[in-house]
């Protein structure tokens, strides 16, 4: 049994994807079945494996996914970013507010989102890499600053992005295109998912085949060795935070594409989910190991858990606690695995 498992984990296709990812996929399937069972038991015969749930999970998965892709770069360098969620919300708040109040064209408002994220990324990256502040504290500080700026800018009002039929509502097509079918039902083309996959491919290319990616992962593996090889580590470390911030801002477009309303002073609950998605996917909290594919699967996993909990009729608070619990568990697994190796 144990040998069989070993052989399975060593076979070619599994090695290509990474055993970690394969295990994660298996856990995901198991979890789906578990949710199906418990939804029926706990929630009056409710079913988990439905089309609607799948759509909903994908919607949740892809804005988390954008953020997690960015976070993968930061975590690869051995850093951490707790400002991702609030930065995403702030980008959505400010650009949405500009659209509503200052009649900013929708196209410009959409561009503003990643731009705002990028500014936060630049500030955070500068503080961490050039001024050598711990990323943990820096990003916690930036998280509060992001929340504060978002609230001030909107005078603590909720911001609602236009509905699909309103002027400027075309942006929703970036997330989903709803195609009415002949039988009266609606087919949901998840454009957001397609864009996510495209961005993920881009990220994977950057991380695995460019100098930037090589240096960023190298910094996470052994900063001094990279620096003593004559590399300006500060520049490349900062770049990781800039990518992370930009993608957090970009995620805002897809958040509002599905959920419309943004509330000031929120967003921090996404941090745990994003970091858990990365670590579950095999990106190590101690840096030096990163997987874009893993991050994608991890994000999907987070979305499935969220749906599963709702499907079982439990409150969303369970989701927060459960994500935090899973984060602690996967980080423990990561560290324990490393300790055993040494």
């Amino acid at each position: 049994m144990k040998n069989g498992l070993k052989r399975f984990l060593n076979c070619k296709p599994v090695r290509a994807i990474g055993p970690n990812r394969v295990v994660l996929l298996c856990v995901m399937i198991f979890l789906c079945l578990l949710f199906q069972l418990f939804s029926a038991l706990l929630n009056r015969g409710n079913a988990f494996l439905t089309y609607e749930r799948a759509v909903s999970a994908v919607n949740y998965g892809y804005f988390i996914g954008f953020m997690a892709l960015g976070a993968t770069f930061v975590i690869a360098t051995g850093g951490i970013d707790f400002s991702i969620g609030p930065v995403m919300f702030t980008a959505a708040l400010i650009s949405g507010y500009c659209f509503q109040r200052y009649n900013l064209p929708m196209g410009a408002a959409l561009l503003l989102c990643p731009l705002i994220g990028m500014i936060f990324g630049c500030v955070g990256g500068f503080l961490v890499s050039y001024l050598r502040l711990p990323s943990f504290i820096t990003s916690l500080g930036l998280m509060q600053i992001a929340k504060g700026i978002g609230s001030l800018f909107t005078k603590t009002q909720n911001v609602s992005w236009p509905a699909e039929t309103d002027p400027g509502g075309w942006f929703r097509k970036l997330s989903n295109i709803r195609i009415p079918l002949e039988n009266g039902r609606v087919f949901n083309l998840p454009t957001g998912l397609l864009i996510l996959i495209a961005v993920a491919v881009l990220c994977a290319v950057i991380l695995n085949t460019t100098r930037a990616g090589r240096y960023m992962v190298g910094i996470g593996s052994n900063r001094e060795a990279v620096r003593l090889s004559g590399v300006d580590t500060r520049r490349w470390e900062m770049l990781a935070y800039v990518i992370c911030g930009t993608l957090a801002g970009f995620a805002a477009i897809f958040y509002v594409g599905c959920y419309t309303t943004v509330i000031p002073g929120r967003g921090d609950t996404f941090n745990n989910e994003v970091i858990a998605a990365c670590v579950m996917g095999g990106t190590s909290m101690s840096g030096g190991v990163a997987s874009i594919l893993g991050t994608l699967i991890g994000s999907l996993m987070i979305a499935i858990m969220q749906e599963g909990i709702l499907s079982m009729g439990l409150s969303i608070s369970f989701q927060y606690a459960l994500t935090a619990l899973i984060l602690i568990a996967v980080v423990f697994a990561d560290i324990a695995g490393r300790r055993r190796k040494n």
Partner: protein
Amino acid sequence: MDLMDEMILEMRGICKSFPGVHALTDVHFDVRRGEVHALMGENGAGKSTLMKVLSGIYRKDAGTILFEGKEVEFHSPREALEAGIAIVHQELNLIGHLTVAQNLFIGREPVRGVMIRDNDMNAEARKLFARLGMDIDPKARMSSLTVAKQQMCEIAKAVSHNAKLIIFDEPTAALTEAEIEQLFALIRELRAGGCGLVYISHRMDEIKEITDRVTIMRDGRYIDTLITADSTKEEIISGMVGRVIYEDPKTESRCPSDAPVVLKVERLNAGKLVRDVSFELRKGEILGFAGLVGAGRTETLRALFGADPKQGGEIWIDGIKTEIRSPKDAVKAGISYLSEDRKRYGLMLQKGVAENTTMATLKQFLKGVFILKRKEKDAAEQYIGSLTIKTPGADEPVMNLSGGNQQKVVMAKWLLRDSSILIFDEPTRGIDVGAKQEIYELMNRLTEEGKSIIMISSELVEILRMSDRIIVMNEGRITGELDISDATQEKIMALATRRDGQKGGAA
């Protein structure tokens, strides 16, 4: 023998090996009551390992330890301390934020219920200091004391544990002349009180002044025990270094004295361990940096390389004044630095051989922004072949390689860079004999190609075998320069143990 009654400690036939290294082979060591016994040897001779075996940090593989006539085996420093063996470490284990008394009684604070009775603690400490003739305020914050006073506290702590055997590991490294006198007065007092004391130091004059007997170790073996008063400095030094030299040392420099100067360093200053260091390096030369651990050799060359900030100094490369503010500048200027601690400073352990090999030269392997992995792998494989790096493949994570092969990967990284000046910091530390030989050959080949090498080594045999010229450092300064034709181990040791402003020589 009735001398046995006096023995407080007897270690017989101690053996200890680590994977691939025999750290201690059949070592004997004993200490009498009321004696200061020096333990001497070069770096890596096994002194610290022996003391770590004694205090329970390491477990011995073979041998017996008798403490106060009973056979003992400690499993932790704490057990050793409870039995009466205390170590005063080179780096002090004190907590700066706490007061002197709090440090003394840490882990065994007098309590009433859950409350610590600070007054009792302070009174107890005051009594202790009075007994030892120390003038220290128990309520003072530890960080406010001088290093010497902190050391006194460490000793007082040992005494307060009723230690019968106290080990001093290079206690004077950070002390001034007057403070050393203070320390010696205290040591004499403890000796008079019947304590056994072990004194580890490289400073010959201190050994002569304070110790009764000297035990010499070399290469993890016991060499001899001498009565200090009856032996000369020269006898002790030759015991320490007089191993059979299995390779012939170089007898004359292969570098012509009119070879152009490729690197000139003037009045380099950085931190405490690099003071006004000036030297020159010639084309095709191997310049050896000798000295004891902590002499400032690594610090000097790290500062030169831009790895640590410097407070002053000028660097000329090929006659052109060059600013080096970071390793990036240094690498651009044609300097390579192979660090002494390759795991910490040289390698990305989880990453493959190829990735590590190209880290300093990645620009050569780019097409646009993309890395040409094929070309990278080819380059790595070429070095795997030419340096005979034993690895299953170019993608193998370097943490799975042996020390010698890891070192070769670091070398491959810098050879690929093709720098004209190479700094080798302890290039053969922790490497087996075969790999050592290959590294020596490589260094010779490099100088034949016209490259220049600075080699830091704590092994005198290595220094004498490889260098064309030798610079000796001690306490952050250059204490001497020797041409290989008239360098001997004794001369180097004398320069390496010479204290500031002191002229070497007579005992």
